[in-house]
């Protein structure tokens, strides 16, 4: 079977072409694939479309905003296209206001379900979220059992960048507490899933088969975060 373990993040992201669609998880600063994002930033792919809960934060840490600030991203699909306070001006906000980057604003649950739908081969689904709001305008509506829903489509991606707590050499993954967030559904949705792992990658058989958050069949590339990697 193909070896999935890569020595460096740079090798693991080397082939990402311009124009790719990527998914990047993380929520509240936890579960963000910072090492992979830093490598993609070094690698320099351009014209990327990002799928992520937010479009970067104001802190100096590496996140999706790092790629945006570097001009590598043409569009973001996310649940926040403005920061909570006008005083927080991220690279994304500045560039979005200037029309240098495009965005699709998606309710967070719809975002999660659209990612899940891509990983589950669902063609489209009806959700009640956003009905009666500006974001549902132009979307197909349907009344089902007396309740109104809007039709939403899957969000597919070429790459998922994943941050895991533990992994085995086959790519079975475990996450710790709310590090989990978007990680499993993105890992299952993308065409190629690249994972940064916080602990030593263990031989197959060391993780309990009942306790796997992402089966290894979804994982293509694994990199152990080195001691001098990005830990937070």
């Amino acid at each position, binding site marked *: 079977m193909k070896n999935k373990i890569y020595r460096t993040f740079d090798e693991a992201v080397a082939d990402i072409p311009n124009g790719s669609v990527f998914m990047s998880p993380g929520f509240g600063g936890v579960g963000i694939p910072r090492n992979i994002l830093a490598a993609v930033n070094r690698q320099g792919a351009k014209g990327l479309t990002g799928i992520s809960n937010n479009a970067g934060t104001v802190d100096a840490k590496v996140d999706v905003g790092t790629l945006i600030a570097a001009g590598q991203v043409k569009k973001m699909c996310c649940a926040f296209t403005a920061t*909570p306070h006008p005083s927080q001006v991220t690279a994304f906000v500045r560039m979005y206001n200037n029309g240098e980057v495009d965005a699709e604003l998606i309710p967070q*649950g719809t975002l999660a379900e659209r990612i899940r739908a891509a990983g589950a081969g669902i063609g489209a689904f009806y959700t009640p979220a956003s009905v009666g709001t*500006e974001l549902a305008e132009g979307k197909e509506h349907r009344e089902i059992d007396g309740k109104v829903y809007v039709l939403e489509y899957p969000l597919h991606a070429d790459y998922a960048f994943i941050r895991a707590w533990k992994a085995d050499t086959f790519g079975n993954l475990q996450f710790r507490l709310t590090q989990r*967030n978007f990680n499993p559904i993105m890992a299952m949705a993308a065409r190629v899933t690249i994972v940064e792992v916080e602990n030593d990658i263990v031989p197959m058989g060391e993780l309990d088969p009942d306790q796997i958050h992402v089966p290894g069949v979804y994982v293509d590339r694994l990199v152990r975060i080195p001691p001098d990697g990005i830990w937070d």
Partner: protein
Amino acid sequence: MAEHRTPTTEKPRLARQAMCDRLAMEFQDGWIVNLGVGMPTLCSNYVDPTKSLIFHSENGAIGYGPLAAPETADRYLVNAGGQQVTAVPGMAIVHHADSFALIRKGMVDVTVMGAYEVAENGDFANWRVPGRKGGGIGGAMDLAACAKRVFVALEHTTREGEPRLLQRCTLPITAPGVVKLVVTDLGLFEVTPQGFKLSEYAPGWTVGEIQALTGAKLVAADGLREFRVRAAR
């Protein structure tokens, strides 16, 4: 809307913690509670030992505890606002799609959110302000559309003294007709078919004074009384 602009009053308004305490007093034993980022998180500071609440956050923590002390905080466990919280026995973690599955199934008994505006028809707006491109929806639309009850906590007026309780929202709404209970720094308001029903007023304030700062007609509740604050513990 010049009629709403009133002379600055010197009367004290309710503190944010008192506002959130009052909403939290409505929570019932066993409820699943989702608190929005910002002011609503203060609801978790009100602890009633006779009630067990299950706090849910969008990022998949079900049954987490109070904010963590810095020295014991676990950086892997954060609430929807990214604040480090504590694990309590019985907590379970799910991924983001399962977390919103729970929300859409209607299992959240109450969600408390901040807002820019609330309308007498139960609409509210909390994700987009005029003159600013984009917005921050987060999980608000999912929660507002699906939670059993939506409570809103907000200042009664804008910094400019304009009312935030209106006949109709002027900003893009988060969900139509869902708000059940509103707390402001001037009182507690039920959203009823007759409009905003003032049930509790801030100490020292009259109905007329509150009405003057409100952009919709207020109805005085039968049992109208002074705002209830937390009992000393």
